């Protein structure tokens, strides 16, 4: 579904991604691990056209998307759930969610998806007319994830969705992600702490210093003592 070859990315003069190769197959959940600040978010941003300077190939469903405007990707069925939320601060929760379904493909499912989301995050339903900027850290993260799910996209790039969520919700979140995946969506997930990662992930990548340092199935990863200690210790 997605194939990245020899991707480099820069912020100004500083190169962050170095010759990254990643491939995500249709229907898979691919998890990317890696220490803080080593380029995971940058990779997702690069896929979604949010990094200004990149080179290399990004092919999505057979067509090259490198350099394509973000909004076009959305219409091609790619959704991005940003680490730092990127909400519309002076709009209500409901308006934020509605905007999540802005893409043409998502509009018919708006109502249906909204209900599902309110089920998953009752807090959002309760606060649907609160201004997004006044939501607590965790609430805002829920809203960001929810807004991404509204897009009905086929391919979801999710960056640390559990950041700041309370433990019970975190567990729920990952089962929801599995659920979504079972419904046929492909998921590219950046996340640090996933309980029972082998239940979720079909494939694991580790990024260190802007390079892919490990690639393999979750079993391979769990078999790797080094990785286990660093990333899966919780």
């Amino acid at each position: 579904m997605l194939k990245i070859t020899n991707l480099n990315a820069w912020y100004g003069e500083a190169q962050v991604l170095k010759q990254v190769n990643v491939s995500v197959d249709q229907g898979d959940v691919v998890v990317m691990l890696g220490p803080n600040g080593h380029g995971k978010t940058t990779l997702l941003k690069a896929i979604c056209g949010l990094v200004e300077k990149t080179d290399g190939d990004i092919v999505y469903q057979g067509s090259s998307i490198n350099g394509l405007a973000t909004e076009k990707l959305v219409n091609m069925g790619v959704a991005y759930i940003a680490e730092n939320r990127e909400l519309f601060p002076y709009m209500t929760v409901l308006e934020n969610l509605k905007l999540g379904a802005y893409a043409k493909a998502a509009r018919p499912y708006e109502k249906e998806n909204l209900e599902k989301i309110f089920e998953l995050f009752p807090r959002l339903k309760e606060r649907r007319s609160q201004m997004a900027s006044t939501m607590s850290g965790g609430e805002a993260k829920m809203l960001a994830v929810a807004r991404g799910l509204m897009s009905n996209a086929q391919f979801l790039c999710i960056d640390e969705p559990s950041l700041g969520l309370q433990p019970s919700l975190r567990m729920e979140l990952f089962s929801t992600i599995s659920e979504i995946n079972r419904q046929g969506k492909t998921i590219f997930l950046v996340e640090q702490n996933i309980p029972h990662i082998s239940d979720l992930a079909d494939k694991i990548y580790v990024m260190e210093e802007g390079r892919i340092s490990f690639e393999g199935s979750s079993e391979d990863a769990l078999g790797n003592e080094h990785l286990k200690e660093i990333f899966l210790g919780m």
Partner: protein
Amino acid sequence: MLALKNVTKKFGELIAVNDLSFTVEQGQIFGIAGPNGAGKSTVYNLITGFYPYEGEIVFNGKNLSGMPPYKIARAGIARTFQIPQIFPSLTVDTSLNVGSRFGSGTGLDPAHVDKIIEFLELSEDRFTKTNKLNLMGKKKLMIGAALATKPGILMLDEPMAGSNAREIKALMDLILRINQEMGLTIIIIEHFMKVLTELTQELLIIESGSMICCDSPEKATRDPKVIESYIGDAYAENN
């Protein structure tokens, strides 16, 4: 050392903090946890004077109510923010100097700043602009600047969020060392149970602005009410 007495904060209809009272003792590491939107960050914002509130907050015998944030900072309360805050146009060094110069009440103390830089292992990045730091760097910077104000108490808001196991371990070590070597009282908001149970001496759990319990972490995390509303069965089993 720090005591909240019947503190209440409303945002319009919403009662974000509801008649909350608790005391943090000198030298403690004091944990605060609770569901999303329970009012944890709001408590910090009240202590540091960002919002007006009802009730009383007393620090070392001094009533903080009505004091502006910068005075509270100079009185010895330092904090970090849940969403990392930095000064993008300043370097690490200058940022720490700002804390030292304005927050300590004694003026710029280069030796102290040097010590913090060394302590937080920031010397490599000392003269880089803070907007170039990664998440961990930014967090350390916030802590460093807070420490530079020579506080009596340090309040951390979800410092572990977004970190992997090794990083969490490193941060826990750091917090412990701040507590022990620097002798600082620490309040920490976290969602990682492991952090709370291993680090804190006392754990306050709040929900919808009200206290559910305030006890030793072992007891608090086993409280059925806490498990139900916050930790969740699945998670509790896991750990």
